[in-house]
């Protein structure tokens, strides 16, 4: 099978040509952002950098980083380059202390995004004629609509099935002849289980390939998905702050890793502790500068995702740099069933309940195919009641408040005072028992 390119010229452009496009776009971005986004201008002024100082790509390193905290401080629209009038779409991702990270798109941004998603789909071997079963959630989350627009631009047939109701999903897959599955990898395993329960042989379906992302997954999980669903499983990467899904995609002929669409997103790898740039091939924190986004560009955005970049040309002929599967985080963020969760959010909820001690622990496990989160809370004398009902009200209140703020259902386990180990310095808040 020959490689499917969506935009062959740019996808196979020699690095010199790519870098010249990147530089031109970077210079225009910095000038525009300096002009229109006050928080960026202030940071650049503080660092004594002017847009004219960006003479070559390496000059990017002179610019300050942008973090999730910056976005939060300027909630909701403070980092946008323009008034809402010219913005046609808003998305948001879960954020700490209940404030989501809000991102905006112009009409051009939506087109760029759709185009890059179409590129990602091609990269995974999908084309016009495919029936794309999109089980990413539709809504504020970028997954559903991002993948949807890309699949439409590709000319494929999209089934906007969204998440949940696995049995119905399988009936649709069977009856509509879905060929490409897009979902989180854990949901793919969930679908495989449901198929087994319904006694449906995956080989009897038309599914050929899966595009899986929005949460960390391992090579073992890939093997399991491929075996259970009888498909080729590929990896996609994206985050709403950068654009959503379609930042990087693994190709079918992969020499390992996902191709970053570098003509739009300029990647760097830094040492998360010092902020120094690391040479190619070294593992560190991934940092992105969006080169073409209009409404909500980011400059040197720290993703907190740990990975490695590979610049060697891929078997597929694409010159675009490849990033390894994300192996971890440089902060304490957890991804539970596709939702970003910070321990500080849980702490915030607990502290809002009178009598709850600031001692808690979060235990993350994978039961079957689904992530589960248990929050252990110490029962202080002031929380205690001799009636079961009182304690059950407490646990259901904590569960409800966490669900309201984070959108994730957790189990609350009450434990004895001092049952949670006190540590010197930084408390170990999270015990992640998932084998990813």
């Amino acid at each position, binding site marked *: 099978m020959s490689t499917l390119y969506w935009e062959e010229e740019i996808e196979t452009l020699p690095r010199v040509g790519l870098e010249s496009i990147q530089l031109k776009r970077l210079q225009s971005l910095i000038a525009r952002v300096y002009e229109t986004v006050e928080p960026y201008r202030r940071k650049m002024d503080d660092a004594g950098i002017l847009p004219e100082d960006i003479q070559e790509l390496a000059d990017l390193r002179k610019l300050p980083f942008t973090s999730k905290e910056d976005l939060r401080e300027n909630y909701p629209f403070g980092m946008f380059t323009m008034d809402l009038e010219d913005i046609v779409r808003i998305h948001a991702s879960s954020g700490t202390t209940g404030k989501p990270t809000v991102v905006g798109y112009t009409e051009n941004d939506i087109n760029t995004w759709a185009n890059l998603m179409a590129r990602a789909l091609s990269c995974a071997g999908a084309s016009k004629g495919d029936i794309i079963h999109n089980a990413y959630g539709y809504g504020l989350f970028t997954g559903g609509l991002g993948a949807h627009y890309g699949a439409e631009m590709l000319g494929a047939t999209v089934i906007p099935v969204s998440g949940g109701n696995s049995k119905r999903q399988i009936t649709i897959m069977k009856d509509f002849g879905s060929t490409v599955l897009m979902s989180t990898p854990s949901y793919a395993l969930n679908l495989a289980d449901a198929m087994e329960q319904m006694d449906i042989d995956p080989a009897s379906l038309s599914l050929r390939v899966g595009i899986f992302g929005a949460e960390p997954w391992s090579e073992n999980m890939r093997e399991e998905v491929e075996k259970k669903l009888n498909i080729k499983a590929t990896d996609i990467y994206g985050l709403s702050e950068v654009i959503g899904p379609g930042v990087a995609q693994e190709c079918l002929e992969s020499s390992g890793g996902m191709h970053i669409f570098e003509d739009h997103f300029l990647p760097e790898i830094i040492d998360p502790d010092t902020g120094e740039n690391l040479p190619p091939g070294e593992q560190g924190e991934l940092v992105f500068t969006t080169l073409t986004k209009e409404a909500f560009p980011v400059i040197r955005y720290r993703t907190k995702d740990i990975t490695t970049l590979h610049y060697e040309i891929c078997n597929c002929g694409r010159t675009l740099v490849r990033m390894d599967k994300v192996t971890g985080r440089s902060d304490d963020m957890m991804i539970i069933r596709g939702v970003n969760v910070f321990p500080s959010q849980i702490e915030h909820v607990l502290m809002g309940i009178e009598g709850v001690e600031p001692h808690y622990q979060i235990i993350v496990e994978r039961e079957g195919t689904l992530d589960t989160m248990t929050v252990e809370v110490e029962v202080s004398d002031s929380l205690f009641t*001799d009636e079961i009902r009182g304690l059950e009200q407490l646990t259901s209140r904590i569960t409800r408040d966490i669900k309201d703020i984070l959108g994730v259902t957790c189990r609350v*386990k*009450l*434990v004895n005072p001092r*049952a949670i180990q006190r540590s010197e310095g930084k408390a170990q808040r999270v015990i992640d028992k998932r084998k990813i």
Partner: protein
Amino acid sequence: MRVEQIAVFLENKSGRLAEITMILADNDINIRALSVADTADFGILRLIVDKVEEAEQVLRDKGFTVGKTTVIAVEVPDRTGGLAAVLDCVQKIGLNVEYMYAFVNKTGENAVLIFRFDDMTRAIDSLQQEGFTILRASQIYNL
């Protein structure tokens, strides 16, 4: 007329109950009555002991969450229908039982019913008016 009961939070972990009873034994505290209420995730141990303050202190010192509540002890003859008579009266008065447990005292003649009601004052007054025997705290602790 009110009896002090201590309640201890039981984490869902093996050996908790044994640990508590051992602590009480080591401190020469005698358990007069007990009940365990449990759910899938945790339990509550309710105890009536001879030395309330001491029991509360030693358990707290050992890291347990301890609470103190008042209950009433109703004495009825240990024969068929003894409990039913009390509950029938409780229902007629319109009292709500939060929880209850019972034991038979040493002589075997009488049964003691431990009650926690939503309205304790009204419960005491009404049950006494109806002629039931409510034990004093000292009678229970020294049974």
